[in-house]
């Protein structure tokens, strides 16, 4: 009898074990995350000091605006209107009343405090998870007051990284070609600015034609192309010191230079007798090595982030297409097979994608494909656009776009644009002059 009860009990137990219901959530929304960026709190003494030094009324508010603009620009965040905030910055930074922030639908909250200590700017900030009611991150920075914009960018980077899972790209700079004058007689200068368009500086005078500047992925060195006695030459420029030098003296043309991922080599095209191939040059010992050897035109080389592969474009199939080869020049494999011409391949810093320019039926496209050539996605289409360059986190592309001239030769302009991998968040980057050939730096602070 007992045994029978025992059996019944044993039968019932496993049924109970099956009872937890599982529901698979395989979809979500890609809407920007609502985030509240409270103005940074500042005491009266600090406020007066910064007003004297920086000529800014309230530096706490100014820094919070930089954070807000950066996050908004990324397309992944929706900074809420400050007028709706119920809690004042000083109290919010100590202990936010999460109910109030929840009320205005904020999911994350940034608070902070600015102080003037020993002639320096000290900023502390905190990131709060409003729904969980807890602090996610707290950091403090001290720097010279003139660096206040960078502090804003760094805060935005930290918030971005904590909430999206990948590094930000706000504390970065963009080097580009500034253009002025009529199309037939353009003055081109090398220029550099913060990624949000501020702190613009010219690096060359505009006497010589300059083209294709590229940042080193490891430091603040730039390689670019400039004409010397009507021959294009590859140059190196150290932004910190302003020193520049020509990379070797070759009998033919050198062009399309780019750094290797470790910053120790330059990979470029070298043309001789109508044939161009890909070469590398070691920057320490200046030893030049030939990588590709084919009677066709091979150009626009770009290393994979691990340095094991090189992508380039070549017309060896009869049309310009994208190829991938090992870094020693072996195992050449064509990866682009769509209709049209493919050029300017650039390997993503994440390593998963290659960005390119495509010309098809008179239209220019910026697109991405996987490194084996599958999954081609065209992100944007226009009359003329090219030269994509990746943000350091591999999420956004910057490129330039030209407009059509009318019959009188007027209306021409070239501007920098950015687009993220979703293809929806396309934005023009304001520059003082016309601009082309942008290149994105790595993060200035890590």
């Amino acid at each position, binding site marked *: 009898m007992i045994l029978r009860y025992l*059996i019944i009990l*044993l*039968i019932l137990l*496993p*049924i*109970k*074990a*099956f*009872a*937890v*219901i*599982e*529901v*698979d*959530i*395989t*979809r*979500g*929304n*890609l*809407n*920007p*995350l609502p985030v509240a960026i409270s103005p940074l709190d500042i005491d009266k003494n600090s406020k007066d000091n910064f007003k004297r030094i920086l000529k800014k009324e309230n530096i706490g508010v100014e820094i919070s605006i930089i954070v807000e603009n950066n996050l908004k620009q990324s397309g*992944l965040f929706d900074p809420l209107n400050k007028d709706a905030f119920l809690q004042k910055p000083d*109290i919010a930074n*100590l*202990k936010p009343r999460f*109910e109030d922030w929840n009320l205005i639908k904020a*999911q994350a909250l940034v608070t902070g405090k600015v102080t003037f200590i020993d002639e320096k700017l000290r900023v*502390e900030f*905190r990131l709060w*998870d409003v*729904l*969980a*009611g*807890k*602090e*996610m*991150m*707290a*950091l*403090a920075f001290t720097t010279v007051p003139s660096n206040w914009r960078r502090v804003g960018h760094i805060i935005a980077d930290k918030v*971005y990284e*904590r*909430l*999206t*899972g*990948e590094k930000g790209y706000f504390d970065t700079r963009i080097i580009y070609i500034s253009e002025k004058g009529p199309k037939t007689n353009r003055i081109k200068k090398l220029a550099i600015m913060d990624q949000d368009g501020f702190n613009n500086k010219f690096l060359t005078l505009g006497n010589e034609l300059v083209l294709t500047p590229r940042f080193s992925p490891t430091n603040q060195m730039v390689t670019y192309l400039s004409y010397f006695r009507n021959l294009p030459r590859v140059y190196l420029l150290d932004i910190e010191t302003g020193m520049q030098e020509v990379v070797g003296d070759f009998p033919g043309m050198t062009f399309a230079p780019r750094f290797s991922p470790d910053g120790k080599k330059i990979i470029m095209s070298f043309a001789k007798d109508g044939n161009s191939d890909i070469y590398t040059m070691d920057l320490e010992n200046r030893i030049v090595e030939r990588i590709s050897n084919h009677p066709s035109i091979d150009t626009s080389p770009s290393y994979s982030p691990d340095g094991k592969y090189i992508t380039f474009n070549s017309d060896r199939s009869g049309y310009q297409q994208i190829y991938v080869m090992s870094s020693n020049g072996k195992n050449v494999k064509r990866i682009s097979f769509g209709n049209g011409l493919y050029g300017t391949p650039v390997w993503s810093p*994440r390593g*998963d994608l290659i960005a390119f320019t495509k010309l098809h039926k008179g239209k220019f496209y910026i697109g991405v494909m996987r490194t084996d050539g599958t999954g081609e996605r065209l992100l944007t289409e226009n009359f003329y656009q090219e030269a994509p360059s990746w943000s350091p*986190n591999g*999420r956004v592309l910057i490129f330039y776009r030209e407009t059509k001239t009318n019959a009188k030769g007027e209306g021409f302009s070239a501007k920098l644009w950015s687009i993220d991998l*979703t293809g929806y968040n396309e934005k023009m980057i304001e520059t003082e002059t016309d601009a082309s050939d942008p290149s994105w730096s790595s993060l200035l602070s890590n």
Partner: protein
Amino acid sequence: MNRNIIISFGFHTLLVIITAMSLPFLAKKPIDLPPIVSVELIQITDKTNIPFAPKAKKIIEKVKEKEKKLVSEQAPPKAVKKIKPDAIPLPDEKIEKVKKIKDKKQNPEKVDTEVKQVSEFEKKELFDTNSIAALIDKSKVESAETNKKLDKITQDQDKSIDFGGLSLSEEDALKAQIFGCWSIPLGLPYNENLLVRIKLQLKPDGSIIRTEIIDHARMNKPGQRFYKVLAESALRAIKLCQPLRVPSKGYERWKELQLNFDARDMLEG
């Protein structure tokens, strides 16, 4: 003697395995009979505010009851008892408790403790600040209170206990709600395992008593930082969505739910 015991043990084990594998499926059958599906359909329309739904619900229930009597005597109609509103703790009490806790300055130089974090619950302890302590206190009180109330409800609802899963329409309602709340972090790697499993303990009104990330140890593993971001986004979605759209009855069935958040389809597509 020993041999007999071994044989007996062997057969009993076999019996247990067979029943464990097959009985739940047998048990599910009557639950999935058409009458119950139709009741749930009304429940969905009720939520979408179609005006004639309550009437239709009554009519269909009557019809189904008649049908049941005709078809089978073994499947008695469920005893449906409404949950008493006074069984749910009032939110005001909680808010007051939080307000009482004094603020104290935190040291910002201590900085991010994300590396140390093991789970959602342990993180609160690591921060060790008054504000976090307040939250822990709050959650303790909250769960204790709720558990008391839940005991009552459980006794009330004993008759309607069943162990089947959610029906398709119930599941769809819940999914649709959470889809809207879940903001997927777009910086996640495409080629990684992006599955976060979260176990929930629910109140009868669908609000959350407790959440637990099942694979929380993964948060600390090297190269898995994205997992923490993903898990946090899933937790945010649950909190944003609560009270969850759960069926109005059969609380015993769904008082514990497991939500499997998988971002792969969204990010690859």
